[in-house]
């Protein structure tokens, strides 16, 4: 970051612009395109929605994993997962 700001709760205009660009980069491609000229508020909202959707995905995947539990052999799964993650 360029300059150190005091950690007060006021945000300067520079900080706002920095935040806007950071938030834009955070969103996945699909959500980013409509945000080309978005205000900080819109970006904050979209980021919120994105995070909530990730939370829902976690809920859903936990549910599915739970149903698959009986077949789970975690030791061989461990090797397989790590292998596939490292190959990416």
């Amino acid at each position, binding site marked *: 970051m360029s300059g150190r*700001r005091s950690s007060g709760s006021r945000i300067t205009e520079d900080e706002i612009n920095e935040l806007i660009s950071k938030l834009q980069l955070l969103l996945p491609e699909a959500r980013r395109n409509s945000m080309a000229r978005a205000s900080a508020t819109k970006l904050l909202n979209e980021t919120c929605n994105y995070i909530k959707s990730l939370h829902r995905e976690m809920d859903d995947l936990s549910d599915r994993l739970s149903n698959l539990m009986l077949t789970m052999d975690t030791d061989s799964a461990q090797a397989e997962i790590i292998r596939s993650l490292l190959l990416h």
Partner: protein
Amino acid sequence: MQDMNAMQATHFLRLLSRLKPLMAPTLPISTSQQTKFILKSAYASMAYAAGPRRVWSRALVRRIRRNRRRPTMRIINKRRHVVRPRRRPAEGGSEELRKVIPGGDTILNGARLVEETSDYVQFLRTQVIIMKALVSSFSKGQHG
């Protein structure tokens, strides 16, 4: 980032393996309890991989531990009061975001909030990838 993935994945699997003894026919736990356990393990793995340097990871650990214990009680004027974490007023626009980031309500600085958000999202994304990989690998196992 690859090291983070492996560490996060390994930790998640280690936590999941604790479920196995609980599934023995003599001590069955319900599917919903299983799901809760898996979800808690998922967030725990994120916090573990991120370490204590982040507000969100520390808040997640506190949240997970709190669920196991009864809420802290204090005696004030001879009455029992449940101690709740103090909420600080947030400045405009970012309230919603603070609610959604663990520990977000304690972050006053806007720039810090974006840092934490960015970090949290990355670990969330990684956790989703790990869980999807597990689901697909175990689904294949069933038909194999």
